[in-house]
Every structure is written in structure tokens, then in C-alpha cells.
């Protein structure tokens, strides 16, 4: 028994470095955001919400948040619709060159992001999309599409073929079967894909750096210029808010998965 306890202790001890690397960095921004000191040095001095007030009253941060929200909503809608259709096309379609199509559709996930950034800048500047909301929406949707595709494809593979057959046998048209039987079954996967697409756009920095202009900053771009220019704790306040937001998102997907498991 003692050898088992010792083995367990060894397992826990060896996992500590990973747990530390995963958690500690994210948590350090929380105490730093409440510092009274105007510079970002450790340990934080006193307790003040001044940096939250500064961020909340800043036009730049407000505009950036608004831009990010609009772009993330629109681009995740585009990516989710296209990604879901494509997932069905690849899972059930029969056509020559399918593996090539699949490779093209998944390639945005593996091409180095800086390359996509400069390429988007070159291409979109030809048609006047640089510095516009539309340009950012299109670029972010292209980045998120493979993620939706992967997520939805995984759900399609779990569909029980007999329920669609049953609907068809009962006289439902293929379109009706798809809308009323298939779609509800894969809904958790589509929602998960949409969330992933939203987060992709919400966090995207590198491509946005090339597509934004001073009057059209997104939240990550605004953070980027703050991090590089002045190291005041305002960014720590924004980071804390973002960590809180991602915790909410995480809890949401957790319940989504729980519901999916229960209905399966």
C-alpha cells in the first residue's frame, strides 16, 4: 500500500512543473491589475481599481472592443455557415479531387501566421480592403473555417444513419430530413465550432496588425501597441477582463459538452 501511495506522490510531484506553467502566468495578471503604482513592477503596491477606471473611460479601448466584437460575430457567422456546409460536402460528397479539396480547406491551419498576414496585406490592398471592417471579417473567417470544419466533421461522424433513413422512409424530403433531423443532432458541434471561430477572431493579432489602421484598431491590436509602447498596468486590467471572459467561455463549452453527452 505504501508503494502505491509513494507512486501516487511521485506522479503528482512530476506533474507540478506543467501545472505551474499552465496556470501561474495567467493568474499573475490579476494582482498586477489592482496595483496603485503607475509602472508594471512586482510586487503590486496597495490596492486600486484606477486601471480599470482608466480602461473603461478610454475611447481607444472602447472603440477597439466594439470593433473586435463586430468583427468576431460577423466572421464567426461566415466561418460557421461555410464550415458546416463544407463538412457535409467532404463527409458525404463523392467527387474527384476530394483529398486535394480537403488539403486546401485545412491549409490555413498550418501556414505560418506571419505569411498569411503579409499575403493578406498584399492581396487585400489591391481591392481596397486594407483598413476596412470587411477585410478583417473575410481574413478572420478564412482563418476560422478549418477549425469549424474539423469540429463539425467530428460530430457528423457520430450521426446514427438509421434516424435519417427513418425520416426518409416516413416520407420526408432530403432537404427536410437535413433541416429537421440532421441539423438538430449536430447542433452542439456547430455551436462549439462557432465559439471556436469567435475566439479565433477575438484573439487574432498578427493578420490584424497588417489590416488595421489607426482608426480601426481591434482589441488585440490596441493591447499590442500598449504592451510595446508603455508598460502601464492598464493592459493588466484588460488582460484580467479577458481571462474572466475566457473562463466564462470555457464553462459554457463545458456545459455544452455535458448536454451533448447526456443526449447521446
Amino acid at each position, binding site marked *: 500500500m505504501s508503494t502505491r501511495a509513494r507512486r501516487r506522490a511521485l506522479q503528482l510531484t512530476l506533474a507540478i512543473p506543467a501545472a505551474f506553467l499552465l496556470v501561474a502566468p495567467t493568474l499573475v495578471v490579476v494582482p498586477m491589475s489592482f496595483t496603485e503604482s503607475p509602472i508594471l513592477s512586482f510586487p503590486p503596491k496597495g490596492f486600486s481599481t484606477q486601471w480599470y477606471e482608466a480602461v473603461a473611460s478610454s475611447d481607444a479601448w472602447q472603440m477597439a472592443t466594439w470593433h473586435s466584437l463586430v468583427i468576431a460575430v460577423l466572421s464567426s457567422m461566415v466561418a460557421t455557415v461555410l464550415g458546416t456546409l*463544407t463538412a457535409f460536402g467532404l463527409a458525404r460528397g463523392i467527387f474527384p479531387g476530394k483529398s486535394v479539396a480537403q488539403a486546401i480547406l485545412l491549409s490555413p491551419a498550418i501556414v505560418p501566421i506571419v505569411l498569411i498576414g503579409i499575403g493578406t496585406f498584399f492581396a487585400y490592398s489591391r481591392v481596397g480592403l486594407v483598413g476596412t471592417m470587411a477585410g478583417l471579417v473575410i481574413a478572420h473567417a478564412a482563418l476560422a*473555417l478549418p477549425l469549424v470544419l474539423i469540429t463539425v466533421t467530428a460530430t457528423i461522424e457520430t450521426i446514427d444513419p438509421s434516424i435519417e433513413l427513418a425520416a426518409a422512409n416516413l416520407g420526408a424530403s432530403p432537404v427536410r430530413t437535413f433541416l429537421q433531423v440532421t441539423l438538430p443532432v449536430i447542433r452542439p458541434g456547430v455551436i462549439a465550432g462557432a465559439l471556436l471561430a469567435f475566439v479565433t477572431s477575438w484573439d487574432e493579432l498578427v493578420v490584424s*496588425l497588417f489590416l488595421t489602421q489607426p482608426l480601426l484598431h481591434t482589441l488585440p491590436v490596441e493591447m499590442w501597441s500598449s504592451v510595446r509602447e508603455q508598460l502601464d498596468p492598464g493592459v493588466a486590467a484588460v488582460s484580467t477582463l*479577458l481571462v474572466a471572459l475566457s473562463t466564462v467561455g470555457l464553462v459554457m463549452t463545458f456545459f455544452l459538452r455535458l448536454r451533448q453527452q447526456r443526449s447521446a
Partner: protein
Amino acid sequence: MVDQVVLTGHRPATSVGRPGLRRPRVNGWALLVLPGLIFTLIAFGWPLAEVLVRSFGGEGAAHNYSVTFTTPAYRSALVSTLLTSAAVTVSCLVIGYPYAYLMAMSRRTELLLALILLPIWTSFLVRTYAWQIWLQDTGVINTTLQKLGIIDDPLELIRNRLGVTIGMTGILLPFAILPLYTVMRRIDRELVRAAENLGARPSVAFRRVFVPLSLPGVYSAALLVFVLALGFYIAPAILGGTSSPTLSTVIVDKVQRELDFHTASAIGITLLAVAIVVLTLGSRVVRIRDVFGGGAP
């Protein structure tokens, strides 16, 4: 395949009344691929083509690419990118393996999984910024060590390759742990127990039975982390300073400050070529789709 199509009721119209027909060349579902495919080709393929074309432009492809490989600064950036990615991959595996093992051995994995998913859901930028707070001269580590009297002057943990490696290891760790855990979870624990019952010491049973069975996860994790690390921009830019540029930071610098699009494009295509070579070599050992599908939470 034909049986399955009939079974699921997606029988293509062409095969009705002709039972002898083999599978059709095209069916209706194929149309659904078109919108996404056309969108990807325009929004993503066109930009890549623009980079490729520019890498051949200016004073010509030969000049652009030879500049990439002969200029000492770019060559050292290439070496630095490869070395950093390799160091990050090794440290992610060494640190992540015991954590994934603990997850696979625990009955209740929710908390351990949440610790991995929270960073994935938190932006790269926030996490890089957090690492800066830890590593900088007035940061958590240096301040604490100085207060304890262990060091007098701050250690150089940032603005060098060490800082980039530490930060990127922290950021990419979830992408190493998830594939490791996925494979380890499926390993039949009875095999390890059988080895122990046959007289192997626990450490021997672990090394000779469990570790070999977990290797597919190790390969997937290594490939995923290495390829992601190759393309990293944010961490090298914030934690690396100007002393150890990577290909990514050089490319952005070329475009934004020097407006030298041709060299930037040639370096970019070189970076892509390196990633493709690594993926091609990796695809002999693991299924690429599994690697990049497994990372999605």
C-alpha cells in the same frame, strides 16, 4: 462504400433502377464543398499566391532567395527559429509527459483538463504579456530572488532565446499535453499490470510497456508543437527583443519598417517550405489530420 450510401438513404439519383452501377463519380453532396472552397481560395489562397509572386519579383527569384540564405542576419534567424522550436518541443514533451500521465491515471480529470483548456481559451497575447511580467528585470522571478538575497543583479531571463523558449513552452504546453493524453488514455492498463505480475519492477514495466505504447502520442505532440513554434510571432517579438530575431520577426520588420516586400516574401516562402518539409517527414509517422484535429478543444 456503396452499401453505406444505400443504407444512409443518400442514394444518388443516377443509381436508381441500375443496381449494377458502381459508385458514381459525383453526387449532390459534393456541391456543398464549393462555397467554402471558393471562399478559402480567394480569402486565403490568393494572399499566398501574392507572396509567392512577390518572392520572384524585384531583382528576381535567384537574388531574393540567395539573399535569404547568404545574409548572415537571415541565416542566423533561420537557425535561431529551428533551435528555439526544437528547444520548445523538447521542453514541452519533458514537462507535459508526466502531466498527461497523471491525467490518464486519474479517475476525475475535470480539474486537470480545465487547467489545460483555460490557457487555450486565453489569448496568446495575454499569456505572452503575463510571461513578460514573470521574466522581466523587475518581474516576479527576479524581484523574489533579489529579496531573498540569492542574486544581486537581475538574471537575464528576457530579451534573449531563453525568455522566448520559456514563454513559448508555457504557451504551447496544452498542445503537447492533449495529444499525449489522448493516446495514453487508450492504453490498456492491464498490459502494465501483466508485466508487473510477471515480475517486472514498476519502473521497468513503465519503461518497457507503457512508454513504447505512448510513442504515437509523443510523435503527434512533437510534430504539432514544432510546427506551431516555427510560425510563432508574438512571443519572439515581445520576449525576444532585438537580440535573437526569428524568421517571423524578420519578415514583419522587412515589411513594416523597410518596405522590402520581395525579400520578406522570399523569407516567408522559406519558412513555409521548412514547415512543409517537417510536416511531410512527420506524416510518415503520424496522421496529419489527427494531429491538427486533436488540438481543437
